[in-house]
């Protein structure tokens, strides 16, 4: 086979943002009234839209049989790229040439209907993903066995546990046999054992000579599965190459971006008496860090902005989630017995965590503050940080990756 299986040339995708708009959709009524208004008030400064390039002049080739990981921060354009490749959204510029049948798996269980039974949903979902009836029938037993739902085949999926639901959905998708498979972050579901199974299946698919494009925030999965990787940043290609090299470049780069601006976040609640405007990690001596490290002291620093005074009885909390969105722990000055009686004129809040007990991985956090018993600022999924592996116990050893998500100090005694 000569030539690349996927060739992307100068690809661009523009979205138009509507600032004023609160609802996700337009109403003709609003469009008409907006037009009518602008007739009488012709100043253009009121323009309520701005352009945003989710992908900008992107060019790369993918060879047949490559297993390509696509990495980048949230909003880097990874999902948009997959959607363009899957022909779900139209590009604004450029050109993509694909030599072969491409199937995409952007969501687990697309089109599943809760009222239908497991058996019916297998057929329906298979058809939606582009399988023919014959193909599905041929793979039916395999799918059922993989999902481990034999006993519930004729039960409506609305009665399934969420684990069963996800297993069934993934099982159908995993048995697709296109030449090119595009997978978005779908492994971030289900329990750890099932994830391992999924990863194994993905690897099997990939080893079968098929081309796989895989988006994930799970660097371990990318490393495990992909031969090459592409690093996207703000819609542009930063590096393409061997997975290890690209991952190194990515981690180095995200380091400098560990400082996060939160001031523009619109999705917050609260009266705004205090607002979180920025975040960065530092070590004990105040030196900025790109990532925390297991076992080393880390300080979470927040820039805060007071919008009113006086600030009395100030409570602050930070909830930390793992990459699967599972709440791991909650840091709160109320629980720690350190509620601030007053906080007027303060600009920075720090939370010091000696010997960070988190394992390596990506974490996200939610922020909360209240002043005088009223919610001042509540920012769900405010940001994230990375933890690199470190020698928590000082013994040079750590438990195996699948043995839990955090470390606990302990000692053994024999008597």
């Amino acid at each position: 086979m000569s030539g690349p299986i996927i060739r992307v040339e100068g690809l661009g995708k523009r979205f138009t943002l509507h600032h004023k708009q609160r609802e996700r959709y337009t109403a003709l009524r609003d469009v008409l009234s907006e037009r009518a208004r602008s007739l009488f008030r012709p100043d253009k400064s009121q323009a309520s839209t701005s352009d945003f390039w989710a992908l900008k002049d992107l060019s790369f080739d993918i060879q047949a049989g490559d297993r390509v990981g696509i990495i980048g921060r949230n909003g880097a354009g990874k999902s948009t790229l997959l959607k363009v490749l899957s022909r779900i959204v139209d590009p604004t510029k450029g050109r993509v040439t694909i030599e072969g049948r491409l199937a995409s798996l952007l969501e687990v269980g697309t089109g599943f209907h809760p009222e239908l039974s497991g058996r019916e949903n297998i057929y329906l979902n298979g058809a939606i993903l582009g399988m023919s009836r014959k193909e599905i029938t041929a793979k039916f037993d395999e799918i059922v066995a993989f999902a481990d739902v034999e006993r519930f085949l004729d039960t409506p999926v609305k009665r399934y546990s969420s684990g069963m639901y996800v297993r069934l959905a993934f099982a159908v998708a995993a048995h697709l046999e296109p030449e090119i498979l595009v997978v978005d972050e779908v492994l971030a579901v289900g329990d750890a054992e099932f994830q391992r199974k999924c990863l194994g299946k993905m690897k099997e698919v990939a080893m079968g000579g098929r081309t796989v494009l895989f988006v994930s925030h799970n660097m371990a999965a990318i490393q495990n599965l992909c031969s090459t990787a592409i690093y996207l940043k703000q819609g542009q290609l930063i590096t393409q190459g061997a997975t290890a090299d690209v991952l190194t470049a990515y981690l180095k780069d995200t380091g400098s971006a560990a400082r996060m601006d939160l001031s523009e976040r619109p999705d917050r609640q609260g009266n705004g008496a205090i607002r979180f405007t920025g975040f960065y990690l530092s070590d004990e001596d105040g030196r900025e860090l790109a990532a925390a490290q297991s076992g080393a002291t880390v300080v979470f620093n927040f820039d805060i902005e007071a919008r009113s005074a006086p600030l009395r009885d100030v409570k602050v909390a930070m909830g930390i989630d793992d990459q699967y969105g599972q709440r791991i722990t909650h840091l709160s000055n109320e629980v720690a017995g350190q509620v601030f009686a007053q906080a007027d004129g303060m600009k920075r809040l720090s939370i010091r965590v000696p010997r960070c007990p988190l394992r390596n991985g990506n974490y996200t956090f939610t922020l909360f503050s209240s002043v005088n018993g009223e919610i001042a600022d509540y920012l769900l999924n405010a940001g994230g940080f990375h933890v690199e592996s470190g020698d928590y116990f000082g013994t040079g050893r750590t438990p195996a990756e699948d043995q839990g998500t955090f470390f606990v100090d302990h000692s053994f005694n024999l008597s």
Partner: protein
Amino acid sequence: MTAKHRVVIEPGSGSQNYWGDLWQYRGLLLFLAWRDLAVRYKQTTIGVLWAVVRPLLTIGAMWFIGWLFGSNVPEGTPRILIVCAATLPWQFFATSFSETANSLVANSNLLTKVYFPRLILPFSTVLVSAIDLLVALLIMVVLMAFYAYLPGPEVVLLPVFILLTLVSSLGAGLLIAALNVKYRDFRYLIPFIVQFGLYVTPVAFTSQDVFGNPDIPEALKYLYACNPMVAAVDGFRYALFGASQPIHWVGFGISSCISLVLLIIGIVYFRRTERGFADTI
């Protein structure tokens, strides 16, 4: 990799072999139609009866109105049959139009996650309504048997007029479906069109009441003929009752032309906006 399957994605290019793709995805079309039917019959306790009860009640009401206002029926043909012959296509139009118009928004989760020719969605809803029509046709058969009425040879034309009904509902449905993606206030228009349509479509009355009435100004008659469903209903009656329900050809021509034009506008507008559905929905 012997069979070359090349796809080129460019702005606005759409798919080069869109209609071929549509054919390839026919399996999905059938599955979606089957899903809608299966879900409906699982959710409602009366199930299949639903396809019978609705037209029955409508027939009853329309029969009463026609009788009340003294609409003309030919000698020897029971009014209920005349009304029934119009209610079936009307019901087909009403459900197929409103389901089609809502089909994209109702399946937005599919639109944003999977590629397939988007026309699959409205087509599958039309298919569901067509199956409902087949069930409802049984009512007609039973009523005819009850009144011992046998239709003439014109009945072979019935499929043509079913197709005409399909054309008018699909045309209007596609247009509203595509507009509804961008401007969500179109959904308020859907029930209004269905309700208004029932008043101006010859269900309780017949087209002869209109065209044959010297008191109605000519201009108004032409306006009446602009309703695409006039041709479909007149055709249904002609197919079932033959010469006793003659077709008014000018009215029929205007009405069916409007159906066709609507279908063309519907498909063109749908195809033109289709590529942006996932962005805006």
